[in-house]
């Protein structure tokens, strides 16, 4: 193998130097576009910065007990977000219990089972459902869902409570001990995040390669056999990413939770019992009556929520983008 190191002799006339000479217009354009892009970075930085500045007095005063304290009594000087974190976790868990199976099934239905004629409108429907304002979900949850879920909660508690202690409530006969619970709020939030979970999973399922699909069918697989061996393995990271993005939305959901729950600052292992709390709902309910260190505590809670969702969504973004790599080709 020979590599010619010296290029053939060129005269000055043949040599072409390819270089871009940006015009002043171009320079302005690039600078403008770049500064717009940087400004989005700045906005995100400012969010973190101002929350931190605002939260500093509370964080400084409380130290580590800001995370571990269950009560919220800023006047007495003891306040922390442990109860809020626990409630947020419980509600997020219930939301996922609802949204993940239904979202998974609905995504499979839209991408694999639905007749071609209604597929497009189903996709639009999911997008539309994601665009419905959460205040409308909140009204639906408060005036419709809660009344119907009360009987369900009571039924679960009466029949399974004797066996599973965490399903018991204080006064099982009165329906009012089941209202405003983490269970009801969690299911309502699950409906809110259902379209998010569905659309992400559907996108990933639709990208399962057609060759492998046809191969499975040609080998005699049933439709479920094909899904189990081709669609789900190819979409695994999309499933995980969809769950995480759904969780991220569920943790930050404010109005639905605020409308349904009645706030409580205790550690509860009884999710069917009335009373729970989340970070977002706590901020919405206390901001107007808070000042000084109490307000600073709210900003601290907001900072924690911000960091939480940031981490979860970044991880989800990495997982989802990994599943998409290679399948998005430009022609």
């Amino acid at each position, binding site marked *: 193998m020979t590599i010619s190191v010296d290029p053939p002799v060129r005269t000055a006339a043949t040599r072409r130097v390819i270089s871009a000479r940006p015009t002043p217009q171009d320079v302005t354009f690039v600078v403008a576009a770049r500064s717009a892009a940087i400004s*989005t970075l700045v906005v995100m930085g400012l969010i973190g910065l101002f929350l931190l*500045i605002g939260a500093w007095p509370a964080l400084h005063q409380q130290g580590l007990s800001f995370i571990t304290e269950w009560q919220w009594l800023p006047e007495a000087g003891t306040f922390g977000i442990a109860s809020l974190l626990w409630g947020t976790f419980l509600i997020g868990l219930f939301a996922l219990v609802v949204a993940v199976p239904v979202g998974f099934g609905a995504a499979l239905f839209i991408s694999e089972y639905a007749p071609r004629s209604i597929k497009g409108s189903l996709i*639009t429907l999911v997008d539309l459902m994601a665009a419905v304002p*959460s205040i409308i979900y909140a009204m*639906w949850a408060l005036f419709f869902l809660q009344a119907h879920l009360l009987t369900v909660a009571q039924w679960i508690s009466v029949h399974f409570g004797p066996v599973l202690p965490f399903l018991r409530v204080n006064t099982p006969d009165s329906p009012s001990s089941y209202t405003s619970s983490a269970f009801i709020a969690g299911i309502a939030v699950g409906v809110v995040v259902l379209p998010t979970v569905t659309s992400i999973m559907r996108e990933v399922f639709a990208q399962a390669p057609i060759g492998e699909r046809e191969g499975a069918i040609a080998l005699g697989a049933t439709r479920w056999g094909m899904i189990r061996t081709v669609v789900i393995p190819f979409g695994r990271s999309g499933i995980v990413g969809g769950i995480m993005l759904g969780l991220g939305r569920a943790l930050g959901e404010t109005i639905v939770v605020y409308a349904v729950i009645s706030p409580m600052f205790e550690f509860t292992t009884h999710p069917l019992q009335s009373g729970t709390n989340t970070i*977002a709902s706590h901020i919405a309910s206390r901001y107007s009556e808070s000042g000084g260190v109490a307000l600073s505590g709210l900003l601290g809670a907001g900072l924690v929520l911000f960091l939480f969702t940031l981490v979860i969504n*970044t991880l989800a973004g990495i997982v989802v983008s990994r599943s998409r790599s290679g399948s998005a080709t*430009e022609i």
Partner: protein
Amino acid sequence: MAATAPRKVKVGGVSTELVLHVGSAAFGALALVWLMYQQLLPITGTIGFWLSWYAVFLVLLAAASATTLDRIAVVDRIVGALVTTAGAILVACLAGIVVFTAVRGWTALKHVNFYHDTTAYIGPDASLDQGGIWAAMVGTLEQVAISMIASVPLGIATAVYLSEVRGRLARVVRTVVEAMSAVPTIVAGLFIYSMLILKFGQERSGFAASLALCVSMIPVVVTTAEVVLRLVPGGLREASLALGTTQWQTVRRVVLPTARSGLVTAVLLGVARVIGETSPVLLVAGSTSELNYDAFHGPQVSLPLFVFNEMRLPLDQAIARAFGAAVVLLVLVVVLFGLARVIGGKPPGHLSRRQQRRLAVTAGLAPAPNAVNVGSLEGDMS
């Protein structure tokens, strides 16, 4: 040997057998559960009834299918039933929410004063022929307009940076924009509250609310616009550059006009996303029920905030007003969404009849309705 035509293999579709199996399982389950509920078990409630019906239905469907199919096919059919149910639940949730809101809102919506009056000088228990959502509609319009003015140019410029300039920062910016779209809206409100109101001592106003909305709107505009800009065929860009244009001229004259409909879609989706945001507005817009045209001074109510304030009152009239305003909000979102679909449904560079004709005239071609050149131009671009 006479060749008989091979039996036609039916691919997909619904067979009579499937209909029979599903129908008999559904009916059988209904009868069985009715019997159990009425006669044997001491449990009541519609939800419990239908849940038990569904469980029995699945069992019976498996049993009925097992009469003609092997195990693998039975599993396939049960999974099919489960998956179809999940799809039906999704559709039912959306339909249920829309119908429920519309039905409850109708009592308020049928009064004309609901659209041009305000609830400023009436009690919350005033009858529905007084008071309305005019102040809230003004507030929503102004706040959304201001946040559009701020975030649309910024968002589209960022998308242009990501897809056209593609500097070293592009990766970071894309990640951060994705993270931004996940920022809980209450945190966006808290951010504006702590910056504008606590730090800079501004009063609560519609302007502060629109700034909080920007945090939600920018990522929607950026991500949608970037997808659209990427759909612009690379050949168009290269053709333009090969003609000796600068990068700015290519973006200005080729890329942006080609993606125009998609960019409109991006803006509409951004607006649809923020028009119903409640939690950021709640923190920074202040509380009032009076009409305030000035978004920069004094508290200003908006549609989601109006719904939120009214639904918390334990009065039938207030709740009816809340539902009425929620219907208006829902209609706005659906209209914006439908517009975005109609406009964005066209591929980039697609020209309507009228645009084709205008182009033909300006290009000096005969203004014949089916000019060949324009037709082929459109074919190349799509």
